[in-house]
């Protein structure tokens, strides 16, 4: 098997995640979709690392994870505080930012 298949898988997962972001309204699911996209990227990085024979790709994936963790922490905190005020986790309810 050609390892390029990993890349195809990564692309597929990324696309699914992105579509999910666009379709779902629940902020938590939305976040999960973003995680999915990040993971898809990580897979690509790891695959590239293998292709190029250097560990830099894995380092990037590692950093991605850290950043994702930070993002999840902040993002979930936002969701919680949103839920407190609006009693809803739907991103469509927070649509006041318009003219």
């Amino acid at each position: 098997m050609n390892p390029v298949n990993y890349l195809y898988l990564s692309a597929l997962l990324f696309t699914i995640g992105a579509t999910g972001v666009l379709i779902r309204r629940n902020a938590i699911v939305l976040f999960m979709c973003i995680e999915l996209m990040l993971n898809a990227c990580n897979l690509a990085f790891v695959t590239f690392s293998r292709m190029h024979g250097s560990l830099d790709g894995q380092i990037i994936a590692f950093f991605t994870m850290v950043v994702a963790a930070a993002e999840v922490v902040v993002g979930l905190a936002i969701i919680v505080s949103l839920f407190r005020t609006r009693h809803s986790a739907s991103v469509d309810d927070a649509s006041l930012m318009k003219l």
Partner: protein
Amino acid sequence: MENLIALLIAAPLLGAAVLLCGGRRLDAVGHWLGTFLAGASFVLGAVLFTDMLGKAADARTVTQHLFSWIPVAGFQADVTFRLDQLSMTFVLLITGVGSLIHLYSIGYMEHDERRRRFFGYLNLFLAAMLLLVLADNYLLLYVGWEGVGLASYLLIGFWQHKPSAATAAKKAFLVNRVGDMGLSIAIMLMFTTFGTFAFGPVLDSADKVGEGRLTAIGLMLLLAACGKSAQVPLQSWLGDAMEGPTPVSALIHAATMVTAGVYLIVRSGAIFNAAPDAQLVVTVVGAVTLLFGAIVGCAKDDIKKALAGSTMSQIGYMVLAAGLGPIGYVFAIMHLVTHGFFKAGLFLGAGSVMHGMNDEVDMRRYGGLRTYMPVTFVTFGLGYLAIVGFPGLSGFFSKDKIIEAAFAKGGTEGWILGGAALLGAAITAYYMTRVMIMTFFGEKRWQPDEQGNEPHPHESPGVMTIPMIVLAVGSVFAGGFFSLGDRFLHWLEPVTGHAEGNSPVSAMTVTAATLVLLVVGAGIAYVQYGRRPVPAVAPRGSLLTRVARRDLLQDDFNHVVLVRGGEHLTRSLVYVDHTLVDGVVNGTAASVGGLSGRLRRLQNGFARSYAVSMFGGAAVLVALTLLMRAV
């Protein structure tokens, strides 16, 4: 001695400044101060005159250079005064008649709370008029020219609370502005032609320039003269100008300012001499105006307006004479001076009558005043005899000369112009006799004014009658004094030049014809107004009468064509500015606003919607990257 010229102007200018800025403290003495400064100017003029008489005839021109006014590259305007025989004549006329009218005004304006201001304006007028006649270049003359216009504006509108006075003042200024436009274009033409506009260089080198250019300059100067001297087609303001106090009408609108046009033409004689076409137009304008004014004068019941028509007509004589070239210049000025005397006298007389009649101006409400106002009657009567050309009096000499000169022009033109002048003389006799009879003879037709005050006609105080007497003396003797031995001719000839025309009719014939027509004109008036009672309300009259009462429809024409047209033009332009010019801009703004309103709908506030566009954008970027690599 020539260093004193500036003082001639400075004295009344000082008076104007002090009186206008001085405030109420000067109310008590203001009129005496103004009169004193006018008189001082006259005395100074007399001193300069005697000095001038002591010099040789061709060495009498003196100039005084004060300072460089507007120096820009080739454009050099200086404040320089020039005193020659022509200017001197005017200086004496202006300051002399001016001083008398100042004196008269002390009495006439006695009850006006703004008398100080009135004298300030009068002094301002004297200064401007002196500047006009003393200037050594056309631009400085222009300053005086507009200066007298301003003074005239202020004085016509002196009783500003009367809307008619304010309107008349505005009209006078505006019509004059049209004439001023001519003067400024003439100056610009001179500058491009000669590179200067000082009298000396321009007049000396006028013969070096093509006739077309000179004709253009001449016509522009004529336009200016028409405005200032109330000649057709710019005559319409003079009748309305009678809204001003009567001394103003006497000084400005009879004796001095309105004759400035004649001065301008005579002063620019060298230009006109070399431009026969322009000269012809000048004579035509003069002839038309002298008939026009005379006809209007016949129909007016307002004593001042009748006299205004007469003024217009008499100035028409002067312009006609000035248009005749060297054969007429001297007589134009001579008639100007004698006219200054008798017309000022007539106006002062009219003022005296009004003074006694509760400011009534309608002659149909006068009548039989000769016994109540003997001095006024006598002085007015002498002025009347002078203007109609009674043999031996001023008008006889000066007007006859003009009629002779008109015939002397020669050819068909000579006959037509001479005929017009003769006809004018007859009409003059008619309308002046009419004024005389309606005012001083016949039965009393006095009526109470709006407040119900019965008029109690009385003779005016001495301060008013003395100037009238002096002017009457001038009206009687000035003509004879000037004509005996051709004194005036020899006096002015060095400046204006003189030529004898060869008239197809003899001088005696002209004089005889004039006298016959005088008798005919006066006789008709006597039959119409002396033999029959004068109706207190004007009858409807013939078509000609009605048209003449309306100033031969000039105002109606102006109103329909200029005022209405102008109103429509400005109104439509305001509309255009608002809707079109501004509309384009506002429309652009509105369309941008509309577009952003549409685009705003994309900004629906849903984060997911924004995410779609972001994602789509990312997709497009990827596609572009791929495409670029493929290419």
